[in-house]
């Protein structure tokens, strides 16, 4: 199978994939009762009416985790080619990849020492 055809398969699959869960939802839409009222479609809350705005800002701690994740995620994408080429790699390429991992570890320990990993 040539490369384009492989991705054509993935493309058709990606278009079809949301159809599978959509199908039962649409079928349910045909059968289900429709009796909405104001109370029924109000926001769920434990015994009282919901107070204040829900769409508030996330706590900054979540952003810090998000940022650390981003650093690791991007760097890991660079590690995948290194891992694929590993078996045929010269010693130089291997050491270069190693340095890269050490820099990554360094960043983790920096975040650790700065208490960015503590849940506050």
């Amino acid at each position, binding site marked *: 199978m040539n490369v384009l055809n*492989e991705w054509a*398969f993935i493309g058709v699959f990606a278009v079809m*994939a949301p159809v599978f869960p959509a199908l039962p939802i649409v079928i349910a839409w045909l059968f289900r009762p429709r009796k909405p009222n104001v109370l029924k479609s109000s926001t769920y809350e434990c015994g009282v009416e919901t107070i204040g705005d829900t769409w508030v800002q996330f706590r900054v701690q979540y952003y810090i985790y998000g940022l650390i994740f981003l650093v690791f*995620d991007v760097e890991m994408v660079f590690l995948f080619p290194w891992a694929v080429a590993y078996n045929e790699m010269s010693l130089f390429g291997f050491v270069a990849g190693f340095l890269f991992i050490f820099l990554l570890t360094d960043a983790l320990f920096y975040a650790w020492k700065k208490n960015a990993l503590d849940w506050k």
Partner: protein
Amino acid sequence: MDELCTGLCQILVESGADAGLAQFLSLLVGVLLVSGIPLVTVIVLIWVERKVAARIQDRIGPNRVGPVGLLQTIADMIKLLSKEDITPTAADRVLYNAAPLVSFASVVLIWAVIPFTPFHFGVDLEIGALFFVAIASFGTLAIMVAGWASNNKYALLGAFRVVSLLVSYEVPLVFALLVPVLLAGSMSLLDIVHAQTGMWFVVLSPLAFVIFYVSSQAETGRAPFDLIEAESELVAGFNIEYSGMKFGMFFAAEFLHVFTNGILMALLFFGGWMGPLYYESPLIAFAWLGAKGGLIYFTTLWLRNTVPRLRIDQIMAFNWKFLVPLSIANLIFISLALKVMQELGASPRNLAEAGFVELLPTTVVLLVINGAMTIYLLGLLRKRGQEARRESMAARVPLAQAAAD
């Protein structure tokens, strides 16, 4: 799937169809065949999940509808179909309706690259492993969108936790995934399985498997990592405002995701379809893959129903201060040892062509390294646990005295 599509395409063209249309139609048939497997499996999975959970909790579980309750899922589906679908007025309608679709679709889409036997697979992408990581993070996104779009306090708390928990555990997951990729020298799942002809990767690197197992348990949001839908504190978490079939889709997606991870672990670490007589017939190969994946799936159910939920600070500390450094150390030690052995000529460079005997020195060295790391880690964990206990005991002594007074 390749031959099937090409064959079907030829037949269609010969019977007078347009070439482009014929190609599209044959691809569509291929897609339906591949996705049929997870779609049928999920119906059985829901029954398995309930039955196993019931047995572990000393109950019988569904046993009324059909033989041993096998038709229970069908009955539940019919019930869900007739349920009213309530959309809260405050919700963001577009995102609210899109989230269950994305959640389920992201799991089904993983099956596009899963090889069922050496010859039966959707596609053998050269970047199969990376494709899995990319598609799986769509599921995370769907849960977050569901929590945010519901415009509900509990759902939003669930979404908050998704951001930290699921996103964090993806780091050790991908680091553990790098080990099979590195050993096989390819990201294609087919190549990774072929590279395990001589020795399963779970033997070469048990630690990578354990890391992958733990973080995939967290990725699917199950106990002890089920903070995103913690029933007792968040009522149901991100899916609190969902009802009817949309709610059902979230659940089907979760059950299917767990099983998909089981199959993936079987492919990455347990030699996929390899087992006695697998080359005799594709059916035997498929049965081996199903048996291995099913066994791993069963252990995740077991874990889910046995251990209690952890606190969020414990979970985050466990990930960032233990699993992530461990997964990096594991990658460093394995790659270093393997390179040294390759340079000395003691280890083959192409695992797919290496037999059991040729791999023996490599296996022994890697196992010794993994064993040493495990012993060191267990000691470290014990010490840390003792410290934590001592601290919490020290904090309790004044309280106990005050109570005694």
